[in-house]
């Protein structure tokens, strides 16, 4: 890891470097880091913006979707003039304008089992900002099996949830299936396009997600590994609850039955990744 910074880098990141917990070494760690953001939507927009602004060296953006007018109420990495464009490409343009020092890798494709196997090994940390349970379970399983930390946020209406899953590190760390063993049957839980979401709620949750990613890269503080953060915007109430590893878990338990991504092959195409 090199500690050489240009004068522009020193100026751009000066408020980071001032922090004892970051400093020049932390800033160099951020520059070395490779983070994969899955979904350039409501969560992925603020997440990618803050990671790029922070100087995370390489950001991968995965999204197969095209930008629609109804996205712009919350997906702040995009602009009206880019409606109809691929969302990974559109977000990459915004990030490049914000911080040209960051390398953005555009993956304008659906996150399926093949994409998970191809892309995830090239990154240090994976962030889930997708809008369907199929992709969420694929990412959770893939990150566990490939040994990558997963920073996972979810929103609906006025609510947000966030956790960091590192079950691959062994006990006591839980995996995503310790919280929810299976995706809900189709139609039981509405999506944002069915039930709505307050745009600012995605902004808060995506920004908290970015904060957890930065903490993981820097190795500072207590991450949400083994905890679940719950936020109800209407009550203005945050709660953090303990999440333990489930010995009976099908992915990380003693008698785990999920050994590969075969259950995710030929899965029906999710309705949307937003």
């Amino acid at each position: 890891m090199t500690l050489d910074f240009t004068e522009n880098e020193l100026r751009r990141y000066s408020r980071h470097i001032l922090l004892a917990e970051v400093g020049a070494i932390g800033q160099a760690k951020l520059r070395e880091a490779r983070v994969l953001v899955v979904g350039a939507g409501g969560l992925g927009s603020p997440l990618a913006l803050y990671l790029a602004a922070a100087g995370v060296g390489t950001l991968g953006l995965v999204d197969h979707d095209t930008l629609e007018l109804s996205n712009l109420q919350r997906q702040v990495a995009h602009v009206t003039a880019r409606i109809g464009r691929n969302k990974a490409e559109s977000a990459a343009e915004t990030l490049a304008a914000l911080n040209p020092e960051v390398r953005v890798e555009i993956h304008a494709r659906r996150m399926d089992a093949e994409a998970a196997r191809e892309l995830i090994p090239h990154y240090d940390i994976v962030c889930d900002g997708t809008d369907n349970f199929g992709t969420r379970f694929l990412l959770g399983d893939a990150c566990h099996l490939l040994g990558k930390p997963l920073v996972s946020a979810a929103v609906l209406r006025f609510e947000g949830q966030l956790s960091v899953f590192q079950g691959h590190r062994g006990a006591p760390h839980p995996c995503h299936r310790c919280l929810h063993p299976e995706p809900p049957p189709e139609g039981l839980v509405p999506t944002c396009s069915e039930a709505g979401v307050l745009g600012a709620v995605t902004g808060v949750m995506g920004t908290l997600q970015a904060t957890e990613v930065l903490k993981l890269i820097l190795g500072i503080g207590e991450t949400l590994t083994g905890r679940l953060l719950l936020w109800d915007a209407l009550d203005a109430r945050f709660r953090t609850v303990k999440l333990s590893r489930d010995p009976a878990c099908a992915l990380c338990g003693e008698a785990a039955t999920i050994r590969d991504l075969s259950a995710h092959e030929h899965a029906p195409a999710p309705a949307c990744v937003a």
Partner: protein
Amino acid sequence: MSTTAMLRIEVNGEPREVPEGASVADLLALLNLAAPKVAVERNLEIVPRSAWAATPLSEGDRLEVVHFIGGG
């Protein structure tokens, strides 16, 4: 001493009584909640779904039903 075998607990911030010996699974059945769309938090700790039936409720327990959400 009362012999009423009821436990006073709190569910989503509201007081509630359940029969002594009731488990987390029994409470969800009482609340008519479908297992695939919730997680359950008891005294600030998530109870794994595999342990619902074997986790008895105690006097004064505070439970929250955490809805499964997946929007982005």
